[in-house]
Every structure is written in structure tokens, then in C-alpha cells.
């Protein structure tokens, strides 16, 4: 009966991502306390907060790197709370990492190809793909989309920091993503690279929603329609970017230091 109820509610549900009462303890330390968030499909949201607010832990719980101590996580209506990361990724969830998590011993092309392969069938095929293989072509398109064509045959360990960050994003765009978690994609980027990043984010198809953790307000508030503020592992405030920016409490806590 429960399963039927689950499926019915999944049909009616419109949320891309739904967290209910998610708590994550590390020993006695609560990294996340009672987080409840609902994100619509296609919605773009920023999660702001100081270091240690629990933003990355939140991402790790959503992707399954950590299991929440309590609470449930639904992805497009399906309860994925106990799923291993790869099962969530195969359902259309993607993420990028604050510190680039790339395959340094492989070329740019191999990195992107693996990303495309991971969300396709026969991911452990023992046969080499042909040049005309659909995934090979998808790989080339994706490399082009993040402006890495000129370095596609180089080892990732040779790339400049900005290029590694672009590759980091490319890996999250492979396949058919439905929802992406961006963890500080602008970290360490030059102003020009930041502009390119904003372009890439705003050019994403409108059905792809995302949550972005970003300290650079110029980037964060330009690419989202809603903002969640976190503090000490709790949700502290939610609203539109303008509301958050002008909120006196928020200004005092997070933006104040910079303005005074």
C-alpha cells in the first residue's frame, strides 16, 4: 500500500527536489538541522551562507555522498534517500565540486567521454567506440560548449585553473541532466572567466534547474530566481534575490562586512 501511495504522490508532485527534515550529524556536531526545501523543476536557486553553514554538506546529502541522519530526500517525486550516488546521477541529478574533482591522468576528451558514458548504457563496454559513436559526438559538442576544444587532447593535469573549472562544469552537463548542484563554480576564476560562467549558466535549457553555492554575489544573484540563506546548518531565510539583498538582517550577517 505504501508503495502505491508513493507512486501516486510522485505523479502529483511537481517538485524537482524535495527535502523534508533532513538532519546530518557528524558525531555530536549537527552539520545540518531539519532542512526542508522544495525546488520546482527548472527553478534556479542560490544557497548562501558563511563557511561552515552546511551548504556543501547539503549537497553531499542530496547526491548521496553522505546519507542523512534523518529526513527524506525526493528527486522528481521518487524517494532517493537511501540510494547510492550513481543511482541518483542516472536519474538526472548532477553536481560539480568546489575543489575540482577531475581525472588528472586522462585527457579532457576522456574526462568528458566518461561523463557521457556514465549516464548511458553499457558503461563498462569492453569494445572501443567508433569515431562516429553518438557518445563521441556528444563529447565533442560538450567540449565545444565549454570552450575547451583547443585543449581537448591535453592531460587535465596540464590545464590552467580556469579551464579545469570549465571542465568541471562540462562533466555535470553530460547526458540529460534534470537538476544540477553547482558548488562554488566561480572559485578562483578571473573576471572574464566569471562572465563566461554566467553566460554558460544563463544559456542552460530552461527545463534544467539548479542550486548554486556561490560567495560572489555578482555571479550568484544574477543567475537565480530564489535564494536560501543558511546559518549554522539551518535555513535562515528564503526569498527572491532582491529581498535577500536588501534584507537588513542578511546584510548584517553576510554582506555587512564587505560594505562597511
Amino acid at each position, binding site marked *: 500500500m505504501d508503495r502505491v501511495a508513493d507512486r501516486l504522490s510522485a505523479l502529483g508532485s511537481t517538485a524537482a527536489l524535495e527535502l523534508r527534515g533532513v538532519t546530518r550529524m557528524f558525531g555530536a556536531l549537527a552539520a545540518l538541522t531539519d532542512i526542508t526545501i522544495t525546488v520546482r523543476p527548472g527553478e534556479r536557486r542560490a544557497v548562501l551562507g558563511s563557511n561552515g553553514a552546511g551548504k556543501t554538506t547539503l549537497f553531499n546529502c542530496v547526491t548521496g555522498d553522505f546519507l542523512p541522519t534523518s529526513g527524506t530526500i525526493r528527486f522528481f517525486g521518487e524517494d532517493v534517500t537511501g540510494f547510492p550516488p550513481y543511482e541518483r546521477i542516472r536519474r538526472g541529478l548532477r553536481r560539480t565540486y568546489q575543489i575540482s574533482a577531475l581525472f588528472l591522468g586522462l585527457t579532457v576528451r576522456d574526462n568528458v567521454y566518461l561523463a557521457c558514458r556514465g549516464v548511458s548504457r553499457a558503461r563498462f563496454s569492453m569494445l572501443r567506440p567508433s569515431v562516429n559513436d553518438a557518445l563521441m559526438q556528444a563529447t565533442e559538442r560538450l567540449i565545444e560548449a565549454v570552450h575547451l576544444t583547443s585543449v581537448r587532447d591535453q592531460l587535465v*593535469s596540464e590545464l590552467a585553473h580556469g579551464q579545469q573549472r570549465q571542465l568541471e562544469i562540462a562533466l555535470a552537463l553530460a547526458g540529460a541532466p534534470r537538476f544540477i548542484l553547482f558548488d562554488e563554480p566561480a572559485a578562483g576564476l578571473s573576471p572574464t572567466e566569471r562572465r563566461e560562467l554566467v553566460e554558460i549558466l544563463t544559456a542552460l535549457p530552461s527545463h534544467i534547474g539548479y542550486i548554486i553555492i556561490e560567495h560572489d554575489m555578482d555571479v550568484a544573484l544574477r543567475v537565480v530566481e530564489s535564494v536560501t540563506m543558511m546559518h549554522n546548518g539551518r535555513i535562515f531565510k528564503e526569498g527572491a534575490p532582491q529581498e535577500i539583498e536588501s534584507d537588513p538582517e542578511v546584510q548584517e550577517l553576510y554582506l555587512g562586512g564587505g560594505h562597511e
Partner: protein
Amino acid sequence: MSLIQEARTREGGLAARGAVSQPAAWSVTEHPWAWALAALLLIMPLIANGFFLIEIFGTTLILGTIALSLMFLAGYGGMVSLMQLTIAGFAGYMVAVFGVSGNANISLGWPWWLATPTALVLAMLFGTLGGALAVRTEGIYTIMITLAIGAAFYYFTNQNWAIFNGHTGINTIATPHVLGINWRTDIAFYYLILAVAALCYFAVLYLSRAPFGLALQGVRDNPRRMAALGFNVNANRIAAYAFAALIAGLGGVLQVWNYRQISPGSVAVERCIDILIVAVVGGITRPVGAYIGAFIFVILRTFALDFLVKVGLDGNRFRLLIGLGFLVIVLFSSDGVIGLYERWRKRGQAGGARSRPGGHGHG
């Protein structure tokens, strides 16, 4: 682990100088002298007599194939497994147990064409189960758990008389006779070994650029990210152990046909460590390194004794020479002899244009 990481860092350093563009690109076609080597191996029976043909070159290719299975796991998967020789030995024992031998009370007397595949399948099962245990660990713990499996198997063969015939082992194991040829005569056996070694070598090369091998290299570089790309990392690792076990098993079958006997001494712990030495000395980042390491090891093992006696030392200290050689090579080149060669080659090309522009895709 750190050894492999260091080797790869050095590789990256080379690449930064614009010399290498693909670490997995070591293949016959890019090295003109490789054709010469292949030709030499093919006409070897014309050059070498029985002793050199089997005791040096045949043994090198067998040992190299077992080391290749470790290279596949360690170089591509970042998993240093010390049980590869144990798997080879297990396959050898199974050939003896299911096939024909002098110990009629133990051997079931199956024909070789039934006993050999059975041995290989069981070896793969052994490797897969061992791998399933080992993938729960990382780095030094993988080494420990696989070494423990190797040690356990050694003591088990010593004490089990019903199947493994205890410390006596199994003797006079029959070798195949097919098409009127006795495949254990020197020349036929040499070509059999060469064919199996070449098959394994090219299979590993091919796989390194197929999705399975690429995914394994992804797991080596960043397992967490692989999971975040939709890969079941542990399944990939266990499958790699299964494939490596097949290669090790093939080496083990050849080994037992070579000596026609097998005893616990063949699967002793120091034999397991020899395989690590072979792979590291040759260069654990390239398939060909396993065979280069095996050649150096066999040469040292065969001639170090005579050499030591000649310079007035105890011949039994030949392992000292092997140890010193190992130390020197690892000290000067963390990616083994093949790394030394590549650095020398790049130095020759320094200032030249970038090697191979693009093109080296998945095709």
C-alpha cells in the same frame, strides 16, 4: 600506492613539457623498433637453443603475463594486488587436480581441453571473490588484504592433502598433445607461450582505451567523482579483478605446463612479492613494463648466481643482487625502466614539435 602516484606525477611533468599527450598510448605502431622486437620474438627458435628459448624467453613471457595482470590492476585501477601470483598458482593447481598427473589419487584425469577452461573459470572466481573483499579497502589496506589471501593460500596448500597434496605438491602433470604435436616440446611450447602473452598484452592495450578500461582509470584518479558521473565504482573494480584473474590464470596454466609440477613453494609469499618487483622494475604504468621487468628479473635470477660465484661471493646471495637492482631502479625512476627509457627518448625530442597532434581518440 604512493609509488604509482609518484610515477604518474612524473608522467604529468613530462606532459607539461609538451612531450606526451596520452599516457595510455604505448603501442606497437608508435615505436618502430617494436616491429623489430616482434620479429625477433617470432624467429627466436632459430637463434636460441632450448635452454634460452624456454628458461629465459619462455619464462620471461610467463612471468610477464602474470605481472601484466598486476599492472592492469595497479597501473589503470590504482589497486596493488599481491594475490596475482596466488591466482596463477591456483589455476596451475586446478590444471593438476582436474587434469592428468602422476598423483592418480588426486587428479581427476580430465582431458586438457576440459581441465584448462575449468581451471581458468575457477581462477576467475577466486580473483573475483578476492577482489570483492579487496575493493572494500584502499591503498595500503588493499596490499595487506591481498597479501593475506596469498599467505593463507600458501599455508592452505601446505596443509591440505586431499586436494593439494600438502607440501609435496603434484608432480608429472600431463601437457597437451593436439594435432599430433606435443605442445611441451621446446619450439611448440615457446610459440604457445608467445601467442598467449601477445593475446594478453594486446587485450590489455585494447581495453585501456575501451569504456571499461577508461572507467577504471577514472576510478584510479577519482573514485568519488566516478560515482557522481553514474558509475558503480565497486562493480568496475571487481570486474577489473576478474579480468586480471583471467590473465594471471593463463600465466599460471603456462607455468604449470612449463615445470610439469606444482607445490606450495610455487605460491609462497616471496613469489607473490616477486611479481610486484617485476611490475615495478619494468614500469607499472605501461603493459610492456611487465615484460621488461620479467626479462630483467629472469636474467638476474638465472645469472646472478654464476656472477656472484665468479667474483668470489656466496652464490646463494643472488637475491641480494635482485634487491639492489630493484632499489637502484626505483630510486632513479619511480616508473621503472620504461620510465627511464621514455625520459631519455623525450630528451632526444626536446625542442622538436609536439608529438602526435590530436587524433589519438577512441577510434
